[in-house]
């Protein structure tokens, strides 16, 4: 088990290194002068030289790479070109907001996804089951940038229950979290239902029934525990779509997270921030995958030696 864990850690480390190199090179491999792009047509020569020295672009590329790697390890992402403020502070606040949003979405998706899936499987082929399955199909194919406006329209414009955007009141999180979660919720429902139906017909459940356990005790103690393993995998795999979905959702609802910071920085051509955001999002994704895989090995004894 130890050696297989070591391999996972090593490959994640390689991935992180790769992400760093890719995000670093994006600015450097482009045709033309990045400084020119940053400053636009009107940039003066003095400004160019100043920014070039500030970003260390006058040094050879391997030195720049080593430098910036060293800086990032220390949590230093440099300064914003526009405001001159260290990026670290902005990133930390944005990260906090994005994680709050992502966790809220995850919470909604797991609670309602699991219960929906269990109910659908318990009452298989009933009207309720069909309703749950067809609505989950609907939510899988609806993109975030349409689901968001749809929820805004229904829940805040027509019904007036929730604030439409921003982060002023504590209810502001409901709409973006719902928008972000419904796709994942649908996938969890689908997975839980199929998995449950498979397990219901297995030997474990037949034995439990023969022992005379109650239906709900079987559901919770036997079936549910077996559903947990694929559930963890799905959550780990879907976390990436949660993060990339957050870019659209945050822009839509003016939620001050990494996604909105990324989009704003792109629009204002503040490339160091863009770079830092992309780096952080990709790293979070790799780390979540790492945690999922390690967790998987702990939960499922069959996985330990592979």
């Amino acid at each position: 088990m130890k050696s297989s864990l070591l391999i996972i850690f090593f490959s994640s480390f390689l991935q992180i290194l790769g992400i760093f190199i890719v995000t670093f090179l994006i600015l450097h491999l482009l045709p033309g002068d990045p400084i020119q792009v940053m400053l636009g047509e009107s940039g003066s020569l003095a400004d160019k030289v100043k920014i070039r020295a500030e970003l260390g672009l006058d040094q050879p590329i391997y030195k720049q790479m080593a430098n910036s790697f060293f800086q990032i390890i220390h949590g230093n992402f440099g300064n914003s070109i526009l405001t001159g403020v260290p990026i670290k502070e902005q990133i930390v606040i944005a990260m906090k907001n994005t994680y709050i949003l992502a966790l809220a979405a995850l919470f909604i998706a797991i609670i309602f996804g699991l219960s929906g899936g269990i109910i659908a499987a318990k009452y298989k082929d009933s009207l309720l089951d069909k309703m749950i399955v067809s609505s989950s199909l609907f939510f899988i194919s609806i993109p975030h940038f349409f689901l968001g406006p749809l929820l805004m329209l229904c829940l805040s414009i027509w019904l007036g229950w929730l604030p439409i955007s921003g982060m002023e009141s504590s209810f502001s999180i409901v709409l973006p979290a719902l928008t972000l979660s419904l796709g994942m919720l649908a996938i969890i429902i689908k997975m839980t239902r199929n998995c449950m139906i498979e397990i219901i017909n297995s030997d474990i459940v037949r034995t439990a029934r023969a022992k005379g356990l109650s239906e709900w005790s079987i559901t919770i103690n036997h079936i549910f525990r077996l559903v947990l393993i694929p559930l963890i995998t799905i959550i780990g795999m879907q976390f990436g779509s949660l993060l990339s979905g957050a870019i659209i959702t945050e822009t839509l609802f003016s939620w001050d997270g990494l996604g909105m910071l990324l989009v704003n920085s792109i629009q204002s051509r503040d490339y160091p921030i863009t770079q830092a955001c992309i780096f952080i999002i990709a790293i979070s994704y790799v780390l979540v995958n790492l945690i999922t895989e390690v967790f998987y090995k702990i939960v499922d004894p069959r996985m330990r030696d592979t």
Partner: protein
Amino acid sequence: MKKIVLFVFFFWLIGIVIKLFSGFDSNQMVFDEILIGPNYISWLGRDDYGRNIFYRLIDGFLNSFEIIFIVTAISSFFGVLIGVISGYFGGKLDQLIRYITTLFMAFPGILLAIAFAAILSPGKFNLIFALSIGGWVSYARLARAQTALVKNLDFVKASELMGNSHINIIIKHILPSIRTPLIVDATYAIAGLIIAEASLSFIGLGLQAPMASWGGMMRDSVRFLLVSPHYALFVGLSIMSLVYCINFFGDYLNQKWNIKNNED
């Protein structure tokens, strides 16, 4: 369900026919009718510049599909090429390619496309580039896994013993046998690309105004959600229904050919 899917495909086909025969200009503005709802002349109403939403949706559809067609062609060509080489020859090269594909997959969803589209100036060519950069990976992974399976089958071995060259074997035997799962995968990839392209346009990295794009229309429509919800509804429904139908078509092909995906 099949009827709805056929209806949606037919709807856009009619749209293209209308475009071909009437040659309308989707940028024509009628200032008296800004943001009015559906009526006889403009079936889906007009947008914030008084432009016909239906016409703009058709133009957006054509613009999107031009981009998606080119991106699919580029990424499937390079993806399959790299995947087949990696799966067929194996060894050190295979390991390197596998590392590169896992590296690309570390960027969730459209993040890589956003990164490249952000740094390059917005425009059609750069959009195609940004979408293709991450697009080839899924093709390469699937082609690699399928090739690795097929290359050990008897008829490939026999062909090898008969003295056929590697290129000959790949073209004559490997490619035809891995074709079907790749086509199904491409169908799903196209559905994903519609959303990716619209997402990029939504955050202002896609086609620039006044060119019609579904993502751009979605972004504009959200600003007028309060006054004219029909704008956002029609644009959103168009994207969603098309994506749903393409996915449905993919499922249909999948069942028809009875494909067992064994991606590694």
